[in-house]
């Protein structure tokens, strides 16, 4: 069996007795784009630093191309020279933009002619050719980020690590960086591992997503898998599944199960047996509201009283009490058409297929 390009085996990182990374086993395949998502402080940056060999794990091993590179100064340096890393708050050295980009190549003892060609290529890639002779310290945040990306790409890494590439930027610069990244990802065979707390960015750029919460890698999978079928309530919460309802499978008819949630039965597709303790996960945008009882094919309709209404951008969040709390998201227009107001009575409807059922642990 051939190994993945990067593979970690049970890596753990402790700082002063506190476990920041807990027993992570991760495989990154050649050429793939993997986004690590998770809240701030989850350990994404530490994991990237471990993968880039900037720090050594407290325990566990890291393999690059099948070779263990966890220990050994020389070995780590050689492995590190096959990768590059754009830090979350990138710094540029107090020298010209071109000299900054040339650093990694000089340290690899590349020939002068090759260096100037690669620097030019990298500058073109990020669209900053005219900044070549500027002192890098005089650039704006977005430009600094672009130089850092060009500098990381100039060494033609086999693996590129990006830590929150757009987190500290204004929306316009962030969009530009993302466009550059999308172009790089589309045009090169570089393997990319990026950390982001911006779920939609992960979805836009990555082919695979890994969810890290509290130092644990909880789930990896395609963006579709992660967003529609989270394997854990913590993942569900992270990816914005606003309804996480605890219940027990009360009855079943082939694949259709009835989940007892506080005396109300929610119909869902599930393979769990009767008596199983489960969570029913329902995306608020899958819940529709109506003033009259719906007679469509949707399997679940509940009468509820509106307890709270709050606008979120172009949408409106509506919290209901249906005997259990239920969150729905509707457009402003439908909120107006339905004349939604606190204490009003409405019917909430969602399909049995919109309910994702996961087993409850504890």
């Amino acid at each position, binding site marked *: 069996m051939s190994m993945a390009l990067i593979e970690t085996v049970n890596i753990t990182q402790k700082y002063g007795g506190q476990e920041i990374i807990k027993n992570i086993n991760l495989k990154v395949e050649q050429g793939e784009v993997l986004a690590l998502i998770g809240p701030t402080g989850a350990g994404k940056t530490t994991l990237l*630093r471990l993968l*880039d060999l*900037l720090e050594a794990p407290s325990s566990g091993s890291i393999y690059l191309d099948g070779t263990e590179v966890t220990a050994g*100064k020389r070995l780590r*340096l050689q492995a*590190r*020279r096959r*990768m*590059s*890393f754009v*830090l979350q*708050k*990138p*710094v540029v*050295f*107090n*020298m010209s933009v071109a000299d900054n980009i040339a*650093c*990694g190549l000089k*340290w*690899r003892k590349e020939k002068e002619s090759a260096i100037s060609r690669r620097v030019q290529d990298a500058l073109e890639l990020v669209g900053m050719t005219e900044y070549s002779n500027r002192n890098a310290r005089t650039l704006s945040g977005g430009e600094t980020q672009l130089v*850092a990306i060009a*500098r*990381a790409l100039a*060494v033609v890494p086999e693996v590129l*690590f990006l830590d929150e590439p757009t987190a500290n930027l204004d929306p316009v610069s962030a969009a530009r960086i993302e466009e550059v990244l999308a172009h790089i990802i589309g045009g090169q065979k570089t393997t990319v591992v990026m950390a982001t707390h911006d779920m939609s960015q992960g979805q836009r750029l990555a082919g695979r997503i890994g969810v890290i919460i509290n130092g644990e890698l909880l789930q990896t999978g395609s963006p579709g898998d992660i967003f529609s079928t989270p394997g854990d309530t913590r993942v569900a919460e992270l990816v914005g599944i606003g309804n996480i309802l605890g219940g027990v499978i009360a009855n079943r008819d082939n694949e259709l199960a009835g989940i007892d949630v506080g005396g109300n039965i929610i119909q869902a597709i599930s393979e769990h047996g009767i008596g199983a303790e489960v969570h029913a996960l329902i995306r608020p945008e899958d819940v529709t509201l109506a003033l009259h009882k719906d007679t469509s094919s949707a399997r679940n309709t509940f009468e509820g009283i509106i307890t709270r209404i709050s606008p979120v951008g172009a949408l409106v969040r509506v919290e209901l009490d249906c005997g259990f709390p239920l969150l729905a998201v509707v457009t402003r227009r439908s909120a107006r058409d339905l004349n939604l107001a606190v204490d009003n009575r409405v019917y909430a409807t969602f399909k049995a297929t919109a309910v994702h059922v996961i087993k409850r642990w504890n």
Partner: protein
Amino acid sequence: MTEIWQGLVTAVKLIISLDPEVMQIAGRSLAISASSSTIAALLCLPLGAVIHFNRFPGKRTLINIIQTLFSLPTVAVGLFVFVLFSSVGPLGGFGIIFTPAVMVIGQVVLITPLMLGLIISALSATDKAVTDTAVSLGASGFQMSVVTFREARFGVLAGLIMGFGRAISEVGLSLMVGGNIRGFTRTITTAISLETSKGDLELALALGMILIFIALVINIGLNRIQQR
């Protein structure tokens, strides 16, 4: 009062006329302090890097000790070097007591903690992300140190200049181990102290002005560096 005024006028004349004795003393002072500063810099730059870039038990304590030695009394270093190099001392065999050589050694001992401490704090003041960036771009340990020194260059240079300033302005050490021998180990500071006690203010004032001028040049240089 007129005596002091007379002294000042004569002192200015001594400087303007490039009086051989004044120039010789000033030149010797500069040569000794430049030598000691250069040697101390050659010691402190690599040593500072080793201390800064490595993690070892007692690092914090070591840095505290170095900082405490910033204000090492010159006479204490003088006494220590004198005991070592005096004809009956353990290093007396070198026969360099009361020579410029032993003055240079003494000044190196005196200013090394100051230079070392300031170099370490200049390196510590650089963003941690600088070293991370260098390492992530494939720098070896040595290449990473070089780029960090480059980033900290103004702070490091300021440390070196401060060391030179302390060397050229100290008197206790030079007097004790140099002996203030005319034409051989007499420096600006030792000459000022001797001439003043003799009541010969002209020479003392002329040398004092030169010393202040040197201090001024150093300060202007430092300011320029810090404004960068």
